[in-house]
Structure formats: C-alpha cells, structure tokens
C-alpha cells in the first residue's frame, strides 16, 4: 500500500492542531483554571442575552414614565429611584448567583 503524503494536508493538520491547542487554552493552563474560564465565558454569554432582553423589556418602557415622574413629584421619583436600584441589585444578584451555581454545580 502506498501512502502519498500531501504537504498541504499535513500543513492544515498542523494548523488544526495549533488551533485545537489554543481552544484548549494551552497545555500550561491547569484543568481547573480552564474549566473556570470556560464557565465564566458561558456565563457571560448567557448574562449578555438576558441583559439585552432586560433593556428592551424594562428600561425602554420605564424611560418616559420616570421622566414624567421626575417632573411631577421629585420626592416620589427619589423613592422610586432608590427602590429600583435596590430591586435590580437583588434581582441581578440572584440571577448571577443562579448562573454561577448552574454552570459550576456548586456555590463559589
């Protein structure tokens, strides 16, 4: 049986191997670090999608209402402002903690 070595194929195999190595985030990186980094990137992607929806659904509709409220009653606006930021903080903390646990299977 005769094997014909195709130089082009060999070169592309090397390139593929190099890319695979990069995709595996280099052999010098510890398995744990690689896993953490991967989880973080997935988490960031999921979070970005959620946040984009959040912008569309909530902030878009709240804008004009808040502007009107600020002109009508500044005291009510101040109360709503502090409630909104605390509410969002609690909600996003819950979302990010949930994502951390979901992707890593444990709480950090």
């Amino acid at each position, binding site marked *: 049986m005769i094997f014909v070595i195709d130089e082009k194929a060999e070169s592309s195999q090397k390139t593929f191997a190099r890319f695979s190595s990069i995709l595996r985030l280099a052999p010098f990186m510890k398995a744990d670090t690689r896993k953490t980094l991967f989880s*973080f990137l997935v*988490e*960031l992607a999921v*979070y970005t999608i959620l*946040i984009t929806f*959040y*912008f*569309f659904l909530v*902030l*878009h509709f*709240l*804008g*004009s209402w*808040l*502007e009107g409220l*600020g002109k009508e009653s*500044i*005291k009510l*606006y*101040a*109360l*709503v*402002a*502090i409630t*909104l*930021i*605390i509410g*969002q*903080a*609690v909600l*996003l*903390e819950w*979302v*990010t*903690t949930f994502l*951390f646990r979901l992707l890593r299977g444990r*709480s*950090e």
Partner: protein
Amino acid sequence: MNLLAMHFAISGTDISPVYLVTIGFLIGIMGGFFGVGGSFIAGPALRAIGMHWNFAVGTDLAHIVGKSIVAAKRHRALGNVDLRLGLIMAAGTIGGAECGAQLIQYLKHRGNVDFVVSIVSIVIYSSISIFIAWESSRTVRAQKRRGTAQIGRLTVDESSFEGLTKVMHRIPVWPVISLPTSGVKAISLWVIVVVSFIGGLFSGFLGGGAGYIRMPMMVYILGIPTHLAVGTDLFEIVISASYGTFSHALKGNVDILVALVMHTGAAIGAQIGAILTQYFAGPKIRLLFVPVPLVGVAIVTYTLLTGHKL
C-alpha cells in the same frame, strides 16, 4: 433601541448602553475586589460622555448602591462582613458626609472650591498609595522571609502597623465593645465612629464612597483583617450611598436609568471581584490596591493643569 447612542431623557444625554455596561463591569470588578465605590473613575467616565457633573455625581452614587449590594451579599456568603461594625460605621459615615458637604458649601462661598478640593485630593490619594505600597510590600517581604506567606483567606492577616492597631485598641473611652466576627476583643466605640466619620468627611468633600481611605483605615487603625474590611466597607457603603442617592435624587441630580444600565455590568463584575479575593492574601490585596488612588491623582492633575474635565 440603538446600542451606539440611547437617549436618557432625565439627564438629557445620549450615551451608548454598551459603554455604560463596560464601565460598570470594570468598576464592579474593582469594587468587589478592593471594597471601593470606584467613583473617581465612574464620575469622570460619565463626564467624558457629556453628562453634567451634578448628574455624574448623583447617578454614580445610585449605581454604587446597586453594585455594593451585589458585592456585599457575595462577601457575606464568603463570611467577609461584620454587620455590627458596618452598622456603627454607617452612622459615622453619614455624619461625616454631611460635614464634608457643608465644607464644600463654605468653600463655594469663598470661591476657591475647585482648587482646594483638587489639591487636597492629590495629596490624600498620593499619600494613601505611597503608604500602602510601603506597608504591604514590607509585610509581604517579612512573610516571605519567615515562609508564612499563604494564598487566600486561610492566611492570618498581618500588617506592619500592628503597633498602631494595638494602641487604638487600648484607648479606654467608654463604651468599649467587642467585634467577634472581626476578631477584635475590645475597642472603644468612639474610635470606630471617628474612623467612619473621617471616611464620611472625605466622601462628602471629595465625592463618592471614599472606600479608598476607609478600607485602609479599617485595616491599620481598627485592626480588621483585609478580607473583612473589604466586605464590611461594601456593606457600610450600601447604607451611606443609599442615603446619598436619596438626597441627590431630591435635588434632581440622579438619572436612575443610566445607573440601572451601568449596574447591569457592575452586578457581574462585583461578583467576580468578590470571588477573586479568595485567591489573594490580605497584604497582596493591599499591594494591588496601590495604583487605584493613583488613577484618581492622574485624573485630578489632568483637570487641574489643563482646565478640561475628563
């Protein structure tokens, strides 16, 4: 919704939400890791895109509230928050912030507020950086010599200023309390109040949460371990910044929509920053903190020399 420029009607500015989320994310990491509000970056960052200073200050405070809640909750889960200490400090901070604001009003009447605040902030920020660089590098070197340097919060936190801490703990002014969570057996309540009052004074005078001065004071003067100082400072900032946000909102200085967008980035950044503290020993966290006040020095010096606000 346009991702390049979204109109925020309350402050009358057009800002890219991507820009706001990115700034929030970076400041969130820093806040979760060092326990600072990051106002010396967030304020100029908002100003740089055309927001008026009054809105930049008020909106930044609102975003700090949200970010600090996320980071403080994460630190609490890691056992890094002393609630008792945080509540006492919040009272002192609010009092100090009011005095700082009054000082600003006085300087406004005298007509030299910008110059005085700039010079004071350059001196304070630089001194903090130089002092922490000196102290933490000395502690890290001493640990290496003894071979006691370990990673993360398993290490018993050390500082080269333990002598000063001991003197502060011995001040016999009634009431003397204990802080079991922080490992402080006895300390005068007034020492804590004075420390938080000074932090609040700088917060009111220079703006933001003043974590850059309160966190080092908690470590060196009160003797709180660095991880606990970071977490407790964040908890304390939640209370004092909420007060500040409400006060600024009443004056019409808060665009809450900008704060909400910034906070979406800060929420995840703060979680990451808080988790990162697990991988660094106290003196190393302090050493990494050194460039943080210098960013403030650079911004203020630029503004002072050129007359342009970033």
